[in-house]
């Protein structure tokens, strides 16, 4: 079995007053795109900063690409591409100068790779950073994270501010690097940002790991919502008593049923009436997310 790309053991960073990260045991396999999800303040960025030794753990340890983050950080950083959340660069310098500087810190990068990334994302290298929009700054952030073709990408909220076309380009790039066997750890506070590209997900809440699983498995236990438009108003009680149903809401002749597991019972109950339309709610995946947040809150 190959060495995990990332392995943490009881990794903790206690900022006091209940803030921080507590006892994180996590394993990210080589070659996978791993989603790291949680609301703001859940401890995602703290974890990423710990992995790069930007901050020191108060307990526990972590290994990245088989190397210890406390003692072998320099070797780790050589092999990792990092995009921080709230990316900041020298505001008075142009993208060109900043990328030259960052490439120099790596002892040089393949100019062709860098140029192709600049072209792919449509990054503007000629204007000072302070004149760039958030999205255009983020493009430079992505170029610098990918330009040395690292084995592992640690990306904190990478699509923040990117327009949909660039997001697509970014997701295509992730698929390519994943196909090449490289690993991606991708943090986000919304599932929709990562659902298309991740193999597995971890959900973090208030500094603690809530669940790690594949999206497919998480979907199986998700609360789903089905909007059913009937020809005439129906008695919602017949849906409330069905197995797995957690909530029913009605507006006129339209009923929204929230349920866990199989949709079979709900669909069959609906079929006893005249159904004009049947619509799964678009935000079903966010419900996975919300469910795990709520679960521990109780």
């Amino acid at each position, binding site marked *: 079995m190959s060495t995990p790309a990332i392995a943490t053991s009881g990794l903790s960073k206690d900022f006091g007053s209940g803030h921080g990260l507590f006892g994180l045991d996590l394993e990210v396999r080589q070659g996978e795109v791993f989603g790291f999800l949680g609301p703001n303040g859940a401890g995602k960025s703290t974890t990423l*900063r710990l992995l*790069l030794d*930007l*901050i*020191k753990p108060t307990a526990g340890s972590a290994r990245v690409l088989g190397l210890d983050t406390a003692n072998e950080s*320099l*070797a780790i*950083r*050589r092999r*990792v591409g*990092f995009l*921080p959340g*709230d*990316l*900041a*660069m*020298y505001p*008075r*310098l142009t993208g060109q*100068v900043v990328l030259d*500087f*960052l490439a120099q*810190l*790596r*002892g040089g990068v393949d100019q062709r790779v860098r140029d192709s990334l600049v072209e792919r994302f449509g990054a503007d290298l000629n204007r000072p950073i302070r004149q760039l929009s958030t999205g255009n700054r983020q493009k430079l*952030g992505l170029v*610098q994270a990918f330009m040395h073709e690292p084995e592992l990408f640690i990306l904190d909220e990478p699509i923040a501010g990117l327009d949909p076309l660039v997001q697509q380009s970014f997701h295509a790039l992730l698929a390519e690097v994943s196909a090449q066997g490289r690993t991606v750890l991708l943090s986000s506070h919304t599932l929709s940002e990562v659902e298309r590209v991740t193999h597995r997900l971890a959900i973090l809440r208030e500094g603690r790991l809530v669940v790690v699983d594949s999206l497919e498995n998480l979907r199986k236990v998700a609360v789903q919502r089905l909007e059913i438009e009937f020809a005439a108003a129906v008695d919602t009680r017949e849906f409330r008593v069905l197995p797995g149903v957690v909530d029913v809401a009605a507006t006129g002749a339209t009923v929204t049923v929230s349920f866990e597991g199989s949709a079979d019972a709900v669909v069959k109950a609906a079929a006893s009436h005249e159904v004009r339309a049947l619509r799964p709610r678009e935000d079903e995946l966010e419900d996975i997310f919300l469910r795990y947040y709520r679960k521990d809150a109780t």
Partner: protein
Amino acid sequence: MTQITLRLRLPSAVSAAIGLLAVMAAVGALFPAVGHSIGKLNVPKSVDNLLGGADYGTVTGWFRSEIAIIYGPLVIGALAITGASAATAGEEEDRILALVLAYPIRRSRLVIAKAAAIAAVVLIVAFAIWIGLIIGVALAGGGITIAHITALAVQLAFFGLATGALAIALAAGTGRRSLATGLAAGVAILGWLVNSFAPLISALTWLKYLSLFYYYAGHDPLTRGIDIPSLIVLGLVTMALMAIAIVSIERRDLRG
């Protein structure tokens, strides 16, 4: 790293250098007209010390009081302190270091590179003061040798390096720009005051040895030349502060 820091700090250093040249030329040109009429000021000893002797009747006294005691160290100290704080704690507060330190660069190397850039700024300003003094003294009618002007510029450069290192140590230790700037400036000003007032109270005379300012100007470089022991002290203080900066930034969490 040094190069990019220098690129960011160079505009202010060059502006200061040009300003210093202009001021010193003007100060020199002014001496023949007003210097002799002012002469040696009759002021309390404390004020006399603060003004570097307050002797405006000689070219040496004129430049000591106008440039060496206040203007020169003020400009070089301000540039060293603000530059050092901005390049380290400033970039940390602005979250730039969160990106840079995710690259394969040791924090110690980063601090040394930043310090090298600030040292270059200090040397540029000290060089401008040297040139400015040569021009100014010539316009004033002469009276200070090139060797003594060089001594002042060298002592001032070492003072600037030590002051900058103090700001770097504070910035590296705390990651707070305003705290590092304020504390380093406070220590520098306190040093100037202590150097002026401590000798007036015999029981507190020893305090002057704690002042960086004493090792810069205490031996009056404009009349007595370079003072090697003072330069050694300033050099050792600079190195000790850099060591503190490196150790403290290696151990702590990056802010932001």
